[in-house]
């Protein structure tokens, strides 16, 4: 489109202090992108989003418009990028707008400040396989012909409320499972709720092992579910982490320690449209390749 028609105006959106602002790198999902990662400035829930819109008109040209406005939009896209674009299922849950200037004529470049004060961002930005949560600033120059639109995405992290988490933190997960006359283990994770930089600590106590165990691993599984039955879509990704090699004897205790900080993890999320859950799965593989596993849901949350 731009080949044939050159925008008569350059719109640039710049957040206040953008250079010094923290950015997140998100794996890109479009195949045409030049780099593997997209960089987005990071905002948190409740933070004001302020910035500067610069409109540059080509030298010696005038541009008529019926007003310029800026909006902050948050939307959930449950289409999935493999799906057909036509069935785009977009739900905008947040729209804030303000006018930058009344209808008139642009002769030379102009700067406009915008300020969305204390914006409540209900959801975290998220880019999953079937679901994505996006925030962006949209500048619209309303014209009689096609409007000129400029988007700028930013990323949002929501930090969990420390006090609400604290209540449950003290409870470790303890499980006692087994196969009759074959295997009996007790395992314990120090807690059910972890921050993303946390370490999962735990131990496995072998009460009975008739099984010839080859090794044992821990899988951290993220499960994203969206839609409602029967059109539910779900996707799981997992991280595997070997925690034991060889076959233990009765009475042996195997330590578990898994640093989460190094992995790209998603905190648990729940809303009407989709949810993201995390599970810890303990998998025992015996010498014949059979797998025995036990999944436990854990809660991940983001802290500062």
């Amino acid at each position, binding site marked *: 489109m731009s080949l044939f028609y050159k925008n008569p105006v350059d719109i640039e959106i710049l957040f206040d202090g953008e250079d010094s602002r923290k950015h997140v790198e998100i794996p890109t999902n479009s195949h045409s992108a030049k780099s593997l990662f997209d960089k987005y400035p990071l905002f948190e829930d409740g933070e004001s989003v302020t910035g500067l819109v610069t409109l540059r008109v080509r030298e010696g040209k005038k541009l008529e418009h019926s007003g310029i406005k800026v909006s902050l939009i948050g939307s959930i896209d449950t289409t999935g990028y493999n799906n057909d674009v036509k069935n785009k299922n977009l739900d905008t849950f947040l729209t804030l707008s303000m006018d930058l200037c009344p209808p008139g004529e642009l002769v030379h470049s102009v700067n406009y400040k915008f300020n969305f004060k204390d914006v409540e961002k209900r959801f975290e930005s998220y880019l999953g396989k079937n679901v994505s949560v996006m925030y962006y600033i949209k500048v619209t120059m309303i014209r009689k012909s096609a409007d000129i639109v400029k988007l700028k995405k930013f990323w949002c992290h929501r930090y969990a409320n420390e006090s609400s988490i604290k209540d449950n933190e003290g409870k470790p997960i303890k499980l006692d499972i087994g196969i009759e006359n074959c295997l009996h283990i007790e395992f314990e994770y120090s807690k059910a709720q972890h921050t993303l930089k946390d370490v999962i600590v735990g131990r496995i106590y072998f009460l009975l092992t008739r099984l010839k165990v080859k090794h044992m691993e821990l899988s951290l599984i993220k499960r994203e579910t969206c839609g409602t039955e029967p059109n539910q879509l779900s996707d799981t990704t997992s991280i595997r982490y070997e*925690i034991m090699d060889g076959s233990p*004897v009765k009475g*042996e205790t195997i*330590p578990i320690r898994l640093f989460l900080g190094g992995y790209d993890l998603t905190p648990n999320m729940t809303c009407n449209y989709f949810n993201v859950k995390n599970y810890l799965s303990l998998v025992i593989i015996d010498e014949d390749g059979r797998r025995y596993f036990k999944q436990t849901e854990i809660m991940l949350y983001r802290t500062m």
Partner: protein
Amino acid sequence: MSAYSDNMEQAISHIKQQTILMQRSLTQKKLMDALKHCSDMLKELRNPDLSPKLYYELYIIIFDSLSILSQYLVENHPTRHHLADLYELVQYTGNILPRLYLMLTVGVSFMQTKDCPAEEVLKDMIEMCRGVQHPIRGLFLRYYLSQRTKQSLTSDISLDKKFDIQFIITNFIEMNKLWVRLQHQGPLRERDLRTKERKELQILIGSNLVRLSQILDDSFALYRDEVLPQILEQVIQCRDVVSQTYLLDVICQVFPDEFHLGTLSQLLDTTLKLNPDVVINKVVLSLIARLNGFWDRQDDPNAIIQNLNHLKLDSNTDEEEHSADDGESTAEKLDSEPVSRNKFDLFFVFWKYLTKITEERPDLPLHEIIPLVHSIMLLSLKWYPSNLSNVDILYKFCWEKYQDFGKDIPEECEQSFKELFIYPLSTDNFYEIITTCDSFQKLLSVQSITLQKSIINSILDKMVETNTKITDKQHLDKLGAICEPIISVPNNKPKTSILTVSDDLDSELTFFNPEQEKLAKLVHLIYHKNVDINTELLLICKKWYYNGGKQLRFTYPALITAFWKLIRKLHFKSLKRPERKEDYNAKIKQLFKYVSRCNTDLFNVCGLSISDLIFKLNLQTAAIADQLTLSEISYDFFSQAFTIFEESLSDSKVQFQALVNMAQVLQKTRSLYNDEGYYDTLITRCTLHGSKLLKKTDQCRAVYLCSHLWWATELTLIGEEEGVTKNFFREGKRVLECLQRSLRVADSIMDNVQSCQLMVEILGSCCYYFIHGDESETHVGVKYIAGLVELIQANLKGLQLEESGEVQDFTAPSQTIVIGCDGSYICKTLSSSTCMVSSKIPNVRIPDLIAVPVSYFERTLEYIENQKQVDYRFNAITT
């Protein structure tokens, strides 16, 4: 998760390649890449199919590679990276084995920096190592931990010693568990292979104990209270034969001797709780060997006994209680010792242990207990060489054990029993042991007869070798009891008839019998300053030996000689102290009676077979009596000798020899020329017997030899001198009579050669008398000699005539033949240096035989010619 290589070559080349890549990354300061390469090469260690040997090879290469990494990490610590961060970072590795190796490498490097919470890191590392439960991989991983922490624990960072020790012990326990588990890997039929593999790996586990002993240095309290109990607990818990045997051995080897002394009872108690298949005595033996070595290494061994008490002060109190309820009999025994019980007694500890082990392990077979006892004996003899009651207790214990056992001793135990008996012999006070320990003999007597004999032989050898004098009656009795098996004759043979039995025995006895020889030697070891006691000892010995039956012939002569010795000793004493002569003479007479008794016993028991020996013994005794001027006794023994000659000596050769012997002894007697005419009676009888010999040659020789009985010659030893001493017993007439009779016999012999030979011999005798006496006294004069010479010449002519009738053969004779003084032929082959002696005519040509008397005669004539220059009287003899 890329897999490991299929074979060793690939694995090694892969590791080497990755090492090079890692080094390159490090020079470029790309740590993350380096870590990636490390983790890549570490994957090789995940291979489950490698034998421990190959695995070790890989481990070594990797160890070196990781050392490079470790060095880099330490050098660049605060500048390029922080090791605390790295410690976390490496834990993202997905596979546990590479992860832990990296983690340990980083962790240990971290510990070498100053700002490191070393204790926490160590704790964390050892805890995380639990993740590897595979025996071989786990063992090597923990070995890696132990190797890596070696420098840091000992050098730079001075951690709390206790912590270090705990750390090593924990690692040791885990390693041992893995090691034991290795046994149960794989199929059952490969058990032996597993055991072999485990033995290859044992050093990995043992190295921990070595480390411990290095760190402990000399902190005994720490060892006793912290280290040892934990180690022993683990040893007991693992219930594995290979492990228990190896670990106890290592414990004995690596820790200082003083520690062992202090914790002896702990160690010993542990052995009680081992797997029943463990050979306990091996363990105890190595412990005792260690203690004995310690004793040897001390400059002043007695000082350590003192120190022992010091070491043991605290734990001694409870021991006292134990001893009270232990076997009462032993406690009593021990209490009665002069060594007071409140002192720490090493032997007592072991003894207690021994009683305990029999209580708790009644299943223990004899062949395991005996070596145990043996090893304790080693200890006792080394540490308490003078405390023989210890040894006795041990023997007694064995004996009781044997009684409980109730059967014959199985063969496999014999060797152990043998060692038990043999060992004390190598110590200095073996004599005290065998003579004072009652149980020694008791235990010995239940052994198999061959074993007994071999031990008795060793005892006797040792006695003779060390020349141990036996001075005590009890000792002698004990020895007698010990030696009984070889003294007495086994009388379980069925007696079919007296004749055959004696034949059997004879054939048995004709062989040289070393055992009896040793018994005979034992007699000479009996010695006491006091003659009476010495006599008594000999009589006891005699009593013991009397049980020997026909074997008396080996032992009694020795006894008789011992009596002779005493007689001479008494005689010497009486000469020195003439005032007590009466007393001594009485004793001497008594001793002669004992000798006579011995002779009689010999005769009664052994009878005809050794009458020759008895004859000689009688003669010799007679000679001694004569020398002490006890004519009555001497006569008695002579007459005994004659009786034996007349009654028992039947072989003509023996008779001849006996007579020669008799004549020789009689000729030297001096005390018999008394009123009763003993000498005359005896010599007449002797000559008479000579003339009645069966063979004429013997008669002839015997008679001319007996002629000397009438012609006493000087005995310089008792101060006689020809020409000075006047009262020589000389009767020339009788001499001549004898010579003439002998000549008559010689003449009547049909064999010309023999006859001539004898005549020349008589000629020799004549020359002797001619030289030694005046013609008027001896009646052997010029005329007589000349006549004899003529006679011989005539006879020889006859001989030579005989020779001319034979076919002439001038080849040189192949051998030289001479006729001996008893008529036997001595042949010397020219080619060899040895001679053959036989009483039969050798198988040679007649002329050679004839040449014998001829050349003899020529030599005699030559002698006479030579004498002419010395003695003018010879000039009268014309030849």
